[in-house]
């Protein structure tokens, strides 16, 4: 099947439908990972440079850290990815005990939009840029990292990848992927940096050991 646009391109380039594809130029070497500890430090440092809050936590500290976050940020409603790891950490139970209303992450968009806090994991992390990489599925809905004013990602060192090459090699066959590098930002009014213009204003990343 042909169409006029493809035909115009071929005519301009002097090609036919039988002209074979030439070889694509080679790509450079990806970045090499450093030690896990230095990659974690680099990752958290980049998050901080992006005006996010990044910290290392042991799973037993999650309870108290959530309590602090809920109190400091006046959180009343939250929505949480329904992944095995977050269930295992008992996130929803802790939030319940703190008196936070829970909204299903698959609820109507108007409902999820009312949440103050969205909690996710990440599928991959890029230390070089302080980037969270999130896939999408029924258990991991896209709106949780987007609609609430605070996004908390609870992540683990094994999610770290040295460069996007590895992330792409593992994730390119999915239907959706998002790189999140810091909180939502703009400088559109007199170049004043403003956080949280459409996406979350606050980004918290907790690196936990398993």
């Amino acid at each position, binding site marked *: 099947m042909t169409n006029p646009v493809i035909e115009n391109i*071929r005519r301009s380039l002097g090609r036919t439908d039988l002209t074979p594809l030439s070889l694509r130029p080679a790509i*450079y070497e990806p970045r090499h990972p450093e030690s896990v500890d230095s990659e974690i430090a680099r990752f958290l440092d980049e998050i901080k440079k992006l005006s996010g809050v990044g910290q290392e936590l042991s799973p037993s500290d999650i309870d108290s850290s959530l309590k602090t976050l809920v109190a400091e940020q006046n959180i009343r409603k939250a929505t949480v990815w329904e992944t095995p790891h977050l269930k295992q950490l008992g996130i929803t139970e802790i939030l319940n005990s703190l008196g936070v209303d829970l909204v299903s992450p698959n609820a109507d968009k108007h409902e999820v939009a009312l949440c103050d806090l969205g909690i996710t994991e990440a599928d991959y992390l890029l230390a*070089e840029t302080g980037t969270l990489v999130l896939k999408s599925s029924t258990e991991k809905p*896209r709106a949780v990292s987007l609609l609430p004013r605070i996004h908390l990602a609870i992540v683990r060192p094994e999610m770290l990848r040295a460069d*996007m090459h590895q992330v792409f090699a593992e994730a*390119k066959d999915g239907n959706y992927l998002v790189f999140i590098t810091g909180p939502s930002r*703009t400088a559109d009014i007199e170049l*004043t940096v403003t956080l949280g*213009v*459409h996406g979350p204003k606050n980004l918290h990343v907790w690196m936990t050991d398993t």
Partner: protein
Amino acid sequence: MSQDTHPYIGFEEYSEHVPPSIPLAVQQATSRFVGGRAARVAELPQWEQLRQIGSDIRQHTIENMDVYLTLLEEKVVAAGGHVHWAETAEDARRIVLQIAKENNVKNVVKSKSMATEEIELNHALEAAGIEALETDLGEYIIQLAGTGPSHIIVPAVHLKKEEIAALFSEKLDIDAPTDPIELARIAREVLREKFLNAEMGISGGNFLIAETGTLVMVTNEGNGRMCTTMPDLHVAVVGIDKVVPDWESLTVFLKLLARSATGQKLSTYTQFITGPRRAEGEFGPKEFHLVLLDNGRSKILKDPIGRDVLKCIRCGACANVCPVYKNVGGFAYGSFISGPIGAILSPQMLGTQAARELPYASTLCGACADVCPVKIPIPTILRHLRRRVAEGDAFAIPTISTPIRATANLASLALAQNWIYRLGARLLPIINPFFRKNNWLSNMPYPLNRWTKVRPLPPFGARFRKWWNVRSTKETESPR
């Protein structure tokens, strides 16, 4: 806009009437971006290597564009998306309106897109009774103000916070404060409602990955994610030049783009969208449409020098360093894309008739080519387009009159052939006595009077070769 209908772009006239507030605001923005870019580039020792690879891959993609676009279409369809081919801007508008009509769409949210600016989609939607709202903060402001963008990355940079507050107060019927952070908060609230209630989201795209049929969108505010996550329908209008072969190639462009544009390592949000959602609970659109826009691009491919413009990844770095752009701002370029890249794209896309002044909107200083992340030889293309304007091409008649061109052709012939040059040099002094006045030729006949009207010409001497020979002999003889 097609080539024969675009209004004439009077760059010279526009630039004479630029209010001083515009260069002031534009230079604040450009100096910040130039500094940010320089800092990011300095961190990356392999920057020059990345630029070269980026340039090579873009070249390769242009030369094989038909193959990659065919693969892209196949993959988008396999992922459950719809592909529409738009040969002209008119086709693209018709396709988008048709999708909107079939789905009974009344409200559209848009993320920033050069392609939809190019086809002037908002007017078409509004004329069909559909509200089309720009949601990037800067674009939202200029849409309320009813003006065009003054900078590719910060479109409303020419407006002061007091002006924006007055605009919000008037258009939104509120009492808006003059604090930028408060103004952004107001926009967030107003637009949040629109995102949640719109039936259709329209976006552009930064890249299209042929390998898997994936749309790549790079944004900072999150409005791009909103437009492609909240409504049930997502329509992306993307130029055919945005195709890249595969994900491996994309790593190069993602590393080049944000660093060149805003001095960030990566923009806040980079989305990779392959078809519609697969389950209702994950959010995202039920239907995904990709409109592939040609609108003159395939014609540009015919010109082996000019077509390098299609390597562009729209970072705006060339504008940020351009001494002309920094003093006139974006409006003067009279089109959806400004700065040096606009000066080489508009004449090729809108025609050398409407945009004939733009190749001259440059000092040819070459700063743009030095910073271009994909090494587009912008000054070379500017000179090439000046030639097309002067000599005429398929779109326009020559700007230089026949006698002048004949004289110039004669001169180039003479300068290229040694014997003609020498003969001319011997013959020309014969005319000296007729025009000589106080050792100057002050009043030559047409067409040389174009020179002598403004300044006198020294008499023809035919002594250069002699002088040169004597001079070089003297130099070799003289002691050091």
